[in-house]
């Protein structure tokens, strides 16, 4: 998949490009709105990452211009601003997403994946989730590992479901807080970690292969198939 990254800060552009390339995307970059518009008019991109503070134009104006020109690929907006512009909210309603700086690379990747998937509109099997020997029955809200039925609280089930949907990929604490608990907070205590430890205690019991892995400073990953 081909992505267009519009970011004027070269250091940020550098590591974002590297992470996206590592994740298997083909990435084209632009440092300003003019170049970006030119690139977007020449070829089709599956997705775009646009910083709002571009030297020659506001990122929002660039996106709105591209939309007017018929470019419909989903956009992940990067913003170093404190308040969310109403126009950004409008774009969010239109299916685009935004991420405030500084962000975790894992979160950027997850959101980009989400956007691309949303665009591809392929439906997943929503009744049953399977990762290795872990199986989640979404209708009966029941999880099993191998033959053993896991005794999970509703909260833990939602947490495990999220990890399973992102199996093999890193999820950060703030992603978990936002998606599982629905809050954008940065607690300065280890509240999320304790939930993960408890879940791990129920899933990765003695004698089984540990599935939930902690990546210090980054987040967690549930081993994929």
């Amino acid at each position, binding site marked *: 998949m081909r992505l267009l990254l519009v970011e004027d800060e070269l250091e940020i552009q550098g590591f974002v490009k590297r992470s996206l390339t590592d994740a298997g995307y083909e990435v084209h970059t632009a440092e300003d709105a003019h170049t970006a518009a030119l690139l977007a008019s020449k070829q089709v991109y599956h997705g775009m990452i646009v910083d709002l503070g571009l030297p020659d134009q506001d990122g929002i104006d660039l996106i709105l211009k591209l939309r007017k020109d018929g470019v419909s690929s989903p956009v992940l907006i990067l913003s170093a601003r404190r308040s969310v512009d109403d126009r950004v909210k409008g774009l969010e309603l239109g299916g685009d997403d935004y991420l405030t700086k*500084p962000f975790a690379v894992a979160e950027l990747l997850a959101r980009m994946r989400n956007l691309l998937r949303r665009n591809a509109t392929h439906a997943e099997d929503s009744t049953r989730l399977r990762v290795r020997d872990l199986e989640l029955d979404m209708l009966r809200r029941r999880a099993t590992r191998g033959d053993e039925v896991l005794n999970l609280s509703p909260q833990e089930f939602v947490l495990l479901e999220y990890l399973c949907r992102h199996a093999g990929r890193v999820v950060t604490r703030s992603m978990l807080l936002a998606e599982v608990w629905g809050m954008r*907070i940065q607690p*300065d205590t280890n509240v999320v970690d304790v939930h993960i430890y408890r879940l791990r205690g129920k899933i990765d019991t003695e004698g089984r292969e540990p599935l939930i892995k902690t*990546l*210090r400073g980054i987040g967690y990953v549930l081993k994929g198939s």
Partner: protein
Amino acid sequence: MSSKAASPIMRSAAWRISLWATLAFAIGTMLVFGMLNQYVADDIQQRSDAWLSGEVEVLGDVAERTPKDRLYERVVGEVAELASREVPNHQRSSGTENDAVFFLQAADSGPAKLWVGSGDGAASLAVIRSARVLPDIPFDARIQGFAIPFRVVSVRIADGSNIYLGLSERDELHVLRNLHARFLALWLASVLLGFIIVFFATRRMLGRVRKITEAASRIGQSDLSTRVPDTTGNDEVGHLARTLNHMLDRIENTVHQLHTITDSLAHDLRSPLTAIRGKLETALSSGVKAEDAEPIASAIDELDRLTEFLNTSLDVAEAKADALRLSRTGVDLDELVRSMIDLYEPCMSDKGLGVQIRSAGSVRVLADPALLHRVIANLLDNELKHLPASSLVCVSLRADKRMATLTVEDNGPGFDAEVSRHLFERRVKGRESRGHGLGLAFVEAVVRVHGGSVAAANRPDGGAQLTVTLPCSETEGQEERHALALVNG
């Protein structure tokens, strides 16, 4: 409903102004009428006095010239009778007898020589004799048997007797009474009309003021870009609206400037933070050895804490200046607190802390949910960081019609005496605290921007207690309805 709607109207300024204006109008018209009444009464009296004087003169003449024979009484009586019929605007009495006028001829003492009028005249004579009478000067005589006094004038004739002519003041009183009744009706009608006109005029005028007040309070709560309408008039209200708008321009400028400063500060700091974080993360995920990973991971943690500190301190700065940007929606505090406790409970029980929720159900407030999440997270983080194991935290939520009260209390050691005085100031923290000391300052600032308040105290039986009050959204709805009721009258 009507009694509820009536009392605000009676308390309104329009009502009071109309009452005072009407009172002044009523007193003024009453004074004018009093003077008019006096003038009319005097005029009527003068006319009847002139008539009386003329008639008594004529009658005196007649009495003098008529020979004192058998026919004297007849002739003079006839003339007096005729004269009495000339009374202007004469109101006929009910009977055949003429009781509006009497004619009396009498010497200084002894019985009446001649009496023309109703009754025998003895009572009249007694009253007239008891009064000091100067010739030719009319006087009032109250005569027994007549409800209305007589106006009497006398003349002395050559034979030494006096001739008295009395005219009942009935006509005069009748005219005046008519005047009074008409005036009273007219006065009442015009006072009522005046009151209604003044009331509606002032209410319309004050309605413009109220519109301005409502607009101004809306502007104060939500956005600063809107302006008070109704600035076109050249009267005081127009001036008020324009002055208010000028003031809003200045406030908006100041707030805008603050936003520009905080935004550019945030922007300038966030870009390098993003770059550093990105590099650290890339380094961490590119397969470094375990002993190298540890410092990188903790550097990322520190960086996140720094970012959070930056965000929070800018939020606090804006909130202190009443310039925090809120996106308010209806929030159920009960639901919000429960989901926060769900998040925090495992961590707390790991630390050996017990948590209790006491709540009677849904409590709706109009607030920015993201900020409220952070407020409650701050309160719970505080408990987590400062409480010794096996303490108990109790979160209770209650609400009355106006305010929702959230209390977080524990049975721990409570606040340090030295800290508790400056609890809500920036950078104040306990000796052992590892936080950045912004937590409670943030809580206080955010709650205040929402129109609430925070109080901290040590409980009498030990432990700390933090109380957050927020205005309920229902009351705001009620106030709006209240205002509508006022507008509709």
